């Protein structure tokens, strides 16, 4: 089992994500300008400000050479996890439903929040039980999830913010969603920053652990 973590210019959390993946499996960085996914079994699109997030968050990264290969990989059923800016990129790429809008506070927010596992049946949550509460930090300015009515079936909601923990005004407290096939997931909280109690929590490790359980 090998993870590939995308590095765009302007990525911030790619090394954190790489270290988080390496707790559970092999992992390497993938360069945005390459087309070759180096035979990885799962792709993580990390947080940050890809290409400066100019124009609109995630809008430029979606057109990078590597992302074209990631989109193809996802359409072939490969597991792809988008975290924060990665979630925004996957929405821009049309791999996930909905969009991320500016927080209702209009400010950046960095805060430890609790999220509930709504769907433990995905490759990203199979190490969890339904209703598990995970303590994971968020940090973003553009994290208010929205999907037009009727476009997000309940089973595609993977994570919801616990009561009182919605940091950005997301619709129905949605914190993480997956595509119809369940092989692509995006979430605003940063599981790679919750893999060690020393730095706050180990709950986010459950997502990487779940992915590492996918047969190679």
């Amino acid at each position, binding site marked *: 089992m090998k993870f590939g973590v995308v590095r765009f210019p302007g990525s*911030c959390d790619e090394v954190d994500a790489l270290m988080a993946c390496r707790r559970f499996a092999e992992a390497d960085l993938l360069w945005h300008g390459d087309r070759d996914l180096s035979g990885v079994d799962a792709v993580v699109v990390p947080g940050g400000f890809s290409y400066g997030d100019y124009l609109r968050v995630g809008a430029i990264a979606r057109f990078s050479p590597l992302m074209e290969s990631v989109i193809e990989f996802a359409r072939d059923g490969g597991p792809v996890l988008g975290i924060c800016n990665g979630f925004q990129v996957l929405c821009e790429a049309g791999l996930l439903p909905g969009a991320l809008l500016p927080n209702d506070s209009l400010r950046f927010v960095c805060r430890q929040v609790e999220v509930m596992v709504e769907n433990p049946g995905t490759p990203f949550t199979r190490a969890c039980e339904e209703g598990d509460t995970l303590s994971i930090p968020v940090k973003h300015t553009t994290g208010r999830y929205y999907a037009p009515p009727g476009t997000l079936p309940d089973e595609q909601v993977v994570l919801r913010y616990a009561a009182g923990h919605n940091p950005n005004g997301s619709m129905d407290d949605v914190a993480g969603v997956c595509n119809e096939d369940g092989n692509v997931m995006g979430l605003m909280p940063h599981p790679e*920053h919750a893999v*060690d109690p020393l730095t706050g929590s180990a709950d986010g490790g459950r997502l990487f652990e779940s992915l590492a359980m996918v047969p190679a």
Partner: protein
Amino acid sequence: MTLASAPHRELGLTDPEYDGICERLGREPNALELAVFSLMWSEHCAYKHSKKLLRMLPTEGPHILMGPGENAGVVDVGDGLAAAFKVESHNHPSAVEPFQGAATGVGGILRDIFAVGARPIAVLDSLRFGELDSPRSRYLFEGAVKGIGHYGNSIGVPTVGGEVYFEPAYEQNCLVNAMCVGLAPRERLIRSAAAGVGNQLVLLGARTGRDGIGGASVLASAELSDEDESKRPTVQIGDPFEESKLVECCLELLDRDLLASLQDLGAAGLSSSSSEMASKGEVGLDIDVSRVPLREADMEPFEIMISESQERMLCVVEPARLDDVLALCERWDVRATVIGEVTGTQHLRVFDGDELVGDMPVDALVDDVPLYDLEPEEPAEALYPQPRARLDAGASPAEALLALLSSSNIASKRFVFEQYDSIVGSRTVRRPESADAAVLVLEPDGGSGALAVSIDGNGRRVACDPYTGAVEAVLECARNLAAVGAEPLGLTNCLNFGNPEKPHIAWQLTRAVEGIRDACLALGVPVVGGNVSLYNEGGEGPIYPTPIIGMVGKLPEPRTVPRTAFAAEGHAIALVGMFEPALDGSELEKLRGRLASSLPPLDLAAHADALVRVRAAIRAGGLPTAHDISEGGLACALAECCVAGGIGARVSLEGDEAAVFGEAPGGVIVAGPREAIDSLEGAIVIGEVGGGDLEIDGVLRVPVSELRTAYDDAIPATLAG
């Protein structure tokens, strides 16, 4: 030329300074040379009113790898790793345009850190504004915080700590000081001295535009006035995306050993970076401004030389490695242009194509700069008005406590630190307000233990007594480190003062530097570098004298670092350290509308010993709770531990009001299981954790929920109007 219209005066040079330039050149300078000299001889670049004073600071110590004079100070943190750190001000730009001023302040200090080869791993900020009931202060505060967050968050460097105070003396002239800490394998460290005649001078990063022209001289080295909106063009505009590529590119260039030297472009742009590199290397440099990539095509050579456009670095490259350097820069999408070369002339020569447009001895620009003696004079009368009273004379102790907790200087700064990414990098063991210092684990970098970092200063106390106030700032910073079990390795400082040409400001500055010196000597902590920001005055007078102290320390075991929060019912609460509280200069006195004219003298040697005992107590590892006693005294420190832990406490204090609300350096509250507390040498047990109230026997009893509301809601409520 008639002196009244002399261009050198408009550029901030005096007539004798102009004569000095002519003497050193053997002729009158042309317009480009005059522009370059005016910046290089500005207070901001030349430290001409502070250099002599700064020589009294101790700068040697066993851990120092690079001291003052380099882009940042560097200390050895063991395991082959080095920590680089520095604090710098961006006060005047932030007073003119708070978002960009503060953002580029962060950008600038980050460049200082990666210029020595270190990866920036933490930012801290120290901010001062007028009182929050002033709309201008709210505008500056919100803008500066947003700007700091914008830059630090976008570039993936966590902002892990800092401090904010609000005093009327900063109403017109806010302070924005930013500190950065970086980490490097020792072998990656690089100096800025240009070397090797014939080596190529390569400019990296953003194009050069007209932004920030004259920032160092016109803006940073003069008092602020009402016409400052016209100075907006002297404020630079930041682009963190460009800098993020520049960080990665420069560190990879250094990892591959492709550079001979590296320097950031800050104040005075190409002029200062090139001449300082040449001065340190005792070489000359030829620069061809026609090769510099421009944002605007019609820029004059002098504009190119003094532009303060952000996100640029200058490096020296051996010709044989040039192709590798250019290829790596292209991979990172970083613009790289050969703009000149190292010469043996000891002159900075500026060409526009083939035409020589400026020729200046490096020595005259950097080393042979006029230095001035200060003429300090203790003022006969108080310099600052008494603050406006905000608390009734008849208020009860409980009312005083709630008023203190909801005063903007003490209230929770959650509004600020939630706008900062404090966790990127996976090193942050203690986030803001969870412990007295930020704690950054070294494990991801192959090191052992953790770094502890704090930034501190209290201008109002320095205004009461510049010497003792400055000593206290150093002690507070060391105490914050001790409260997480860290031993200080080095100190950086930013001296924010008014106009040093005025005798009473010269006196404040001199006394404060003497205080920092004495405290550093007593603690055995060397100064590794710093920054001076003078002329911080608005129409209503000078700011409070504000020396800001930043320290980096090391601790062996990050897993047992105590938190501010009380942890469990029944834990014993004790006082460790040396604590002799008084009301002079305290927050309570401020709320009552009084500003003292002195502070009680301190026994520095005894304080240094006490800090060693505090550190030993924390390192023993049995204490889940530790919190230093600072603004608002013991009562506020206890209240903060209660609010953080969501649990009450009962304590007994001997003494009068000063024992409850008085302030002094040196005291730390600890709490833990009884046997852990009993084993501490010299600890005074004052009570026990438990219940839903904070109760001080015979003085006050307040539910923790009320304390929390006062502490948590004050700043958001004030901002909401």
